[in-house]
């Protein structure tokens, strides 16, 4: 664990028209750690992630990477920093097949020509490593995949690359038992290899299984960022549902704002 966080967001606010979704949010991510981001439905987790990924522009706030301020306005900017995100709404191209989706935007080529063979091989390997056994062919269009299969494709896509930060927005939502275990193991392995991993999940078992740190959003505000070993299940649930738990969490006047 180093001292400068790999990624630091300071004072992020974001509104959609009249609705303020994030208020003055601070969020830090450290290399080699799994940071769990939790919060109630509509707390603003996905919005925060989309701001980090350059999908949404920030209304105000600072974006520090490796301690240096950077400006991230498009997904390309984020990718250039080494930030890879699996969004909750997946965003796969339904008209493309699994291989094409997994390598989208980073196709392997030989000269001008796409190297479909290598891509197909690597896609099949990665999928298999995520315990997906029911995909008939990696040349199937993703529109014909089951919910969990789609989810797996999106996850596989994110881990194919050498990144510095991997953010997973509810990756286990649609996954089966074996696949979930596989993904959690993957998350742990990524962090152990020195990457920073952010995991968003509503499942406390999953969170406590892998997280080093837990950040809880409550109604668009950061209620607490704590070490996973310092809190219990029920404390985190309390943070999620009420924004505070004992001396952790938002001050009362803050919560009322």
């Amino acid at each position, binding site marked *: 664990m180093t001292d400068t966080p790999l990624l630091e967001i300071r004072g992020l606010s974001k509104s959609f028209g009249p609705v303020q979704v994030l208020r003055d949010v601070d969020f830090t991510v450290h290399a080699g750690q799994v940071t769990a981001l939790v919060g109630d439905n509509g707390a603003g987790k996905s919005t925060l992630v989309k701001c980090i990924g350059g999908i949404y522009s920030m209304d105000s706030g600072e974006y520090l990477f490796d301690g240096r301020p950077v400006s991230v306005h498009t*997904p390309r900017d984020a990718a250039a920093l080494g930030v890879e995100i699996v969004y909750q709404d997946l*965003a796969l191209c339904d008209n493309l097949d699994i291989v094409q989706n997994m390598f989208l935007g980073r196709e392997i080529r030989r000269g001008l020509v796409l190297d479909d063979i290598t891509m197909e091989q690597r896609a099949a390997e990665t999928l298999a490593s995520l315990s997906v056994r*029911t*995909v008939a*062919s990696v040349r199937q269009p993703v529109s014909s995949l089951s919910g969990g299969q789609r989810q797996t494709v999106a996850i596989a896509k994110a881990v194919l690359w*050498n990144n510095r930060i991997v953010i997973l927005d509810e990756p286990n939502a649609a996954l089966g038992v074996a696949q979930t275990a596989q993904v959690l193991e993957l998350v742990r392995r990524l962090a152990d290899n020195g990457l920073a991993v952010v995991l968003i999940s509503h499942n406390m078992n999953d969170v406590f299984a892998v997280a080093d740190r837990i950040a809880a959003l409550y109604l668009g505000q950061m209620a607490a960022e704590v070490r996973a070993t310092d809190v219990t299940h029920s404390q985190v649930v309390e943070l999620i549902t009420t924004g505070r738990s004992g001396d952790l969490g938002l001050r009362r006047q803050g919560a009322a704002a």
Partner: protein
Amino acid sequence: MSLTTLPSRETLEERRSAGFGAYARDYLARIRSGNMGALPAVLGLLALVVAFSVARPEFVTAGNLANLLHQGAAVTVIAMGLVFVLLLGEIDLSAGFASGVCASVLAVLLTNFGVPWYVAVLAALATGAAIGLIIGMLVAKLGIPSFVVTLAAFLAFQGAVLLLMKGGTIVAVDDPIIKKINFDGRLAPLPGWVLYGVTIAGMLALHLWKRYSRVRHGLAAEPRSVIALRVVTAAVLLGGAVWTLNLERSPNAAISQRGVPMIVLVVGVLLALCTFVLNRTAFGRHIYAVGGNREAARRAGIHVDAIRIAVFVICSTMAAVGGIVAASRDASVNPNTGGSNVLLYAMGAAVIGGTSLFGGKGRVLNAVLGGAVVAVIENGMGLMNYSPGTKYIVTGVVLLLAAGIDAVTRRRAARAGLR
């Protein structure tokens, strides 16, 4: 990041070693499930050809086949360009008149300024590219819907043609090289056969090479029998066409008109080029991605705006080629070149071929097939001695029938499977 490969890959590769029988069953099942590629368009085309041949025996003469190729070329080329724009779910109403503008540039430069043919051709293509660039910028950067931008361009280009043509005169295009393109250029019979041989051999080589490298890497590949079937079919069809076109078709004994029209070569090369770009390059893949789900493409780091601009450039440049082809055929350009029904026919050709107006779905080959459908209808109707009123009605009905065959086959097939 390398992940350990777990052992259970059977399902993924179940079909790797499948032979012809399995492949055929697979193909039939795929057809039944509505995934039929070019088949329905070919069926529609076939039905049309048979119908016209029965109605007018002249329809199946060598001379008429050559006419058909000349007549349909411009619309087909424009349709090929439109496929790119349609793949993105955009529309280009100006493609017809853009071809007119480029043809005018060509004609005015050739005839009024006497520049060499290649300068004129380059200028026409550059005009097309510039047009596409402007349209693309307005659509991608300012966010004006492409329907509106190209409607404005549709109007403006009509004016531009008039200005270039000085208020409506006809400009002759008499350059012998330009006229080779789609007026009187022909491959002599022997070179025609040689080219045919090269094409078929190339096709075979490509298929076998692909199969070889896939098998070498342990991936599922087409069985040899399927490749053979495909290549033989192509060889027979193309061979028949070359043979027919190598017959003497001139009504004038003094002039021989044997050989494959040059325009076939032009369209063939464009088809191969466009197909290569769409299927085998990252750029082509990104076009499909942006058309399929623009937000997903953006999140994958694709320069969505650049792709959007590029397709308009391609479309307008292809329209310029179409304009040159049209100018060559008419050996002249007039203010109506690219006007009247050219745009609608080109869009129709693309859509009949199965390109979706919603983006993400379509192939250039299908635009060529759709162009053939349109050309066959126009050509066949021209042999019937109908009054304009009847002709329009019959044309509409025939078009509907041709497209209907396509739709009904797809639908029947789709019933079995999805939705």
